């Protein structure tokens, strides 16, 4: 998994001329990218400017499939990255599993349903999860509940969010009694509390991979960016926002 590390050197030459990279990143990464990481990177490499577009990973996948001129893609799950990779749209060697996020069960702050574990999910009248077909967080939720043998019952009372924000808002406003999101999302909203973390082994790890899009014409700069994201400096920022670094 650290293949590409070998070939690349942190000191690889910056481009002579100014270049602008376009990063497509999962929506959950927007704040740490925009507020900290990109400014840091741009300061380090004044010749490289970074533009970023944020959306749900699935949508970004579609956009890349349709030829959007993205240089670097950072997804919130392996599924999208793998799908692109299978279509040979990614530079295979560039893909790095960078971060891990935790899947958590959340409830509204003053919930009186007494839900404290994934197993107790059926106490909820309505459950909010991402749409497993398109939202990574939903896929993980489905996986957990399937492992617990509860998925059929849960899905019957579930509202399927088209993105994590929706799920989060549903719970924070009490529309749903419980739901599944990432710990980073949970941290961003004061009106929800984490009721439980996903039990060990109940779910495959939530991996945030990053990689270079094959059609990119700025592979060198892209490499520099990925190297930067892998640096301790960057990883500590990610950790500040609740991610776990995978290095």
């Amino acid at each position, binding site marked *: 998994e650290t293949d590409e590390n070998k070939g690349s050197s942190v000191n690889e030459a910056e481009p002579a001329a100014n270049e602008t990279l376009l990063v497509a990143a999962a929506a959950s990464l927007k704040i740490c990218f925009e507020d900290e990481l990109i400014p840091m990177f741009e300061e380090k490499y004044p010749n490289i400017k970074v533009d970023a577009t944020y959306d749900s990973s699935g949508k970004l996948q579609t956009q890349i499939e349709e030829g959007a001129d993205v240089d670097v893609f950072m997804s919130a799950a392996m599924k999208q990255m793998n799908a692109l990779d299978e279509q040979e749209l990614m530079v295979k060697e560039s893909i790095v599993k960078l971060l891990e996020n935790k899947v958590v069960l959340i409830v509204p702050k003053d919930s009186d349903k007494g839900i404290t574990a994934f197993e107790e999910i059926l106490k909820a009248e*309505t459950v909010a999860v991402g749409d497993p*077909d*398109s939202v990574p967080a939903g896929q993980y939720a489905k996986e957990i509940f399937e492992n617990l043998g509860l998925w059929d019952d849960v899905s019957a009372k579930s509202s399927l969010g088209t993105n994590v924000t929706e799920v989060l808002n549903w719970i924070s*406003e009490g529309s749903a009694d419980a739901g599944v999101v990432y710990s980073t999302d949970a941290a961003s909203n004061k009106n929800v509390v984490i009721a439980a973390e996903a039990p060990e082994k109940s779910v495959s790890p939530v991996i945030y991979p990053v990689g270079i899009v094959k059609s990119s014409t700025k592979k060198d700069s892209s490499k520099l960016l990925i190297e930067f994201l892998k640096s301790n400096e960057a990883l500590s920022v990610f950790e500040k926002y609740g991610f776990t670094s995978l290095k």
Partner: protein
Amino acid sequence: MDWSPMLISLRTASLSILITFFLGIFAARFVIGMKSDKAKIVIDGLLTMPLVLPPTVLGFFLLLIFGVKRPFGKILLDFLSIKIVFSWTATVLAAVVVSFPLMYRSSRGAFEQVDKTLIMAGRTLGMSERRIFWRVVMPSALPGVASGGVLAFARGLGEFGATAMIAGNIANKTRTLPLAIYSEVAAGNLEGAYGYVAVVLMISFFVLSLMNYFTIKGRKYANKDEEK
């Protein structure tokens, strides 16, 4: 293909166009009747507002009003046992809110185009303002009002962002056609999406045709030729 989104959408769109239609007309009538041009402009701005906000954000604001933890939502729940969020009612609410400006604005334009002399004629004939409105102004404004209706219906049928936010996306309950389409598209299941798209287009096509037909028929007095 699952047919429940279609049924839900049909019910939602029907009820919401009914509400929007009359609400929009009344709002238009009210604004036109206002004496002060300034107040008119302000109210107009307020009533058109729902249109400039992304539906999701609009849905979010609706959630802040109707959410069970918010004062208004709480009152509804505690005193009337009405829970808006995640209910079918919410799909109607969302559709009404997003389509209202279309109906309001179109019918306002249509009413403003009506010859004032006719209104005056009605008054001197002792017709009540209400009667004048329904018997004189409305028929003359029909094309514009119908346009508003068409737009509002289509918009209500296609509503997605605000609906998802306040009504959720619960199969057999609040999953409307647009939500179903979105899910399929997002999941990359294009065939499934096309099926739903076809259904939504067929519905809208059917309803638009009906509306067109009735508008053309209802305006026969404007066509000089009577059938021979």
